[in-house]
């Protein structure tokens, strides 16, 4: 049976070790440019939730993730377009896009920025009118609310 005084000796260093990671985590959440929002309802400019998108009919999905992630699983019919393979990805996207179609760009998660960058370029450089970013990207898509395809999709 351990004595109470022995336990007390261990409490302080264990507490210190447990609290140590809290400081950088707190600093990151407050100051990091891609920190996770504490408010799930708050949308950045141009962002939409999956709930909103599910109400739309004419959508062209754009996947802004790596080829490996895309091959593992993506929204059925999604076109892949990334900043680094922009010139190769743009013509096929323009071939399938139809006027009056809304474009919804997604990347891996809430913290990735590639969907925002790709959406901005489609809007400003390519000149397509209705371009949105899906909040939380693949994180919410993989829950199966929309039709998915790929090597890892059952």
């Amino acid at each position: 049976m351990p004595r109470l005084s022995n336990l007390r000796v261990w409490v302080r260093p264990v507490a210190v070790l447990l609290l140590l990671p809290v400081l950088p985590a707190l600093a990151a959440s407050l100051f990091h440019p891609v920190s996770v929002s504490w408010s799930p309802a708050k949308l950045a400019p141009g962002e939409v939730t999956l709930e909103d998108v599910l109400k739309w009919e004419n959508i062209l999905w754009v996947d802004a993730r790596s080829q490996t992630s895309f091959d593992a699983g993506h929204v059925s019919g999604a076109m892949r377009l990334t900043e680094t393979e922009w010139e190769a990805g743009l013509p096929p996207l323009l071939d399938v896009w139809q006027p009056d179609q809304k474009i919804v760009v997604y990347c891996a998660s809430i913290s990735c920025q590639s969907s925002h960058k790709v959406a901005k370029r489609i809007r400003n450089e390519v000149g397509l009118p209705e371009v949105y970013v899906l909040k939380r990207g693949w994180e919410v898509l993989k829950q199966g609310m929309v039709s998915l395809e790929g090597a890892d999709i059952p």
Partner: protein
Amino acid sequence: MKLFWTTLAVFVLAYTATSQAQLVWEQKHLSFKAKVDEPTLAGVYRFTNRGDYPVTIGEIKSSCGCTTTELSKRDYAPGETGEIKAVFTVGNLSGLQRKEITVHTDDPRAGKVNLKLEVDIPGLLQITPRFVFWKTGKSSRERKVMIDVTHDQPIHITEVTSTSSRITAELKTIEAGKKYEVWVKPENVDSLGKATISIKTDYPEDVPKTYKVYAAIK
């Protein structure tokens, strides 16, 4: 108290020792700023086998067709040093390019190593929009594409061509070497059609760049 810190130190040391990979890399991340007239860039990732048994390098996979790799030999004895050379072809790419090279080895502690290559390629022209379109049966009004030279030297547009005889493109010089317009017009919008407009420049002199604008009747 002393026992606690000693136990913790032993665990940390044991973890560090067992997680140490055989191959130790001098650098896993290379960054370059490309010059305009450089068709390719090469970077070298050096490594040393710091373990006590040989390591064989297997497949080396690049995330982009624009990056090729060269490795002089595959087997590395303990203490031996080697290098992987990555050659990046600039082509028509522009802006910040981030590529990944995955190196597979038979090292049980680090069988897969990810090397990063970052290349910043300066843009020479700003072309907006890159896509013009018309709806079938609607207005066939011509569309304007603006070209601004963002490079510090003048760049001239030498030729503008269209892949379709139904959709024509006409170059208009606003300020030679600085500012141009391309006016794109369909013959009619009765049916679907598309064209790629090529904008040829005189820069860089040895391999002048060509840019593309896309047009479609949807």
